[in-house]
């Protein structure tokens, strides 16, 4: 037995799976689908035939997704909602920051190992551990940039380390260098702003 509501729900899932994630276009499309089904109800065709015809008229999900992406411009490319956009921007910044730090420390380590009689010190071990954390940070920020938000904890962890280092710097060195303050603001903003992506709320029906 054909269930129209279930079929519409399945169609919606297919559209979501194809990448039309933003609730607004999907709701508009669903409303359109329902209007078309309603109009065709008087045609004498079965509910299933009407549904299939309406779905065909709406068009393929892949093509629609491409068109919506084009329509969104740069903002659309950044993400379909505020949180997705913030996550992508933060992902970009963190990728730049982690990569820069990783290569800076790597070059120091290389210089150290190439030096005459290198000696293992606690600083060396700390630097190696931090390199591994930064490497994980690079992977996490790439994932965040492309929309995979599961690694948010790692970015938050590195931001936390940054904050800790700032506090240590204030206590031990008692200086307030401007770059460190800027970095701290960036770390705080990351911890505060990194959120899971917003779930779409439907207004259709």
């Amino acid at each position: 037995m054909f269930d129209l509501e279930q079929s519409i729900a399945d169609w919606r899932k297919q559209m979501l799976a194809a990448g039309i994630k933003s609730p607004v276009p999907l709701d508009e499309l669903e409303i359109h689908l329902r209007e078309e089904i309603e109009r065709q109800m008087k045609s004498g065709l079965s509910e299933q035939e009407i549904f299939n015809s309406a779905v065909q008229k709406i068009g393929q999900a892949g093509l629609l997704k491409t068109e919506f992406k084009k329509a969104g411009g740069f903002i659309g490319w950044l993400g379909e909602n505020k949180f997705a956009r913030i996550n992508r921007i933060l992902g970009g910044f963190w990728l730049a920051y982690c990569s820069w730090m990783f290569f800076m420390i790597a070059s120091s380590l290389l210089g150290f190992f190439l030096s005459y009689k290198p000696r293992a010190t606690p600083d060396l071990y700390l630097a190696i551990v931090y390199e591994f954390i930064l490497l994980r940070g690079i992977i996490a920020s790439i994932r965040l940039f492309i929309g995979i938000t599961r690694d948010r904890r790692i970015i938050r962890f590195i931001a936390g380390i940054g904050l800790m280092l700032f506090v240590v710097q204030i206590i031990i060195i008692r200086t307030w260098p401007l770059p460190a303050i800027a970095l701290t603001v960036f770390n705080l903003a990351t911890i505060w702003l990194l959120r899971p992506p917003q779930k779409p709320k439907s207004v259709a029906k």
Partner: protein
Amino acid sequence: MIRKELVAASAEPMILSLLARGESYGYAIIQEVKARSGGKLQWTDGMLYPVLHRMERRGLIKSRWAESETGRKRKYYALKKDGKTAMAKHQEQWSLVHSVLAGLKKEQYV
């Protein structure tokens, strides 16, 4: 059936001209175009929405969600000031194309 490229090129001026008559929503716009062209101008229904969104992003039209008399939520689109200017430009250009083609057609029969 009208060529795909021509349908795509005429979408924006057509939407602007329809909205100049008053606010409307996606489904109604498609039905109106179908009716006015005698079904010869066929849009893939879903493709209208990316066009509407692009026009809204460019500041040509604005939208608002409202409930229809049947209780269904609809997104209504209306023309903005920039949209009116864009519509006038489109109409001018299409009129020029039309007059050139009409002139050439006339010459063929002379």
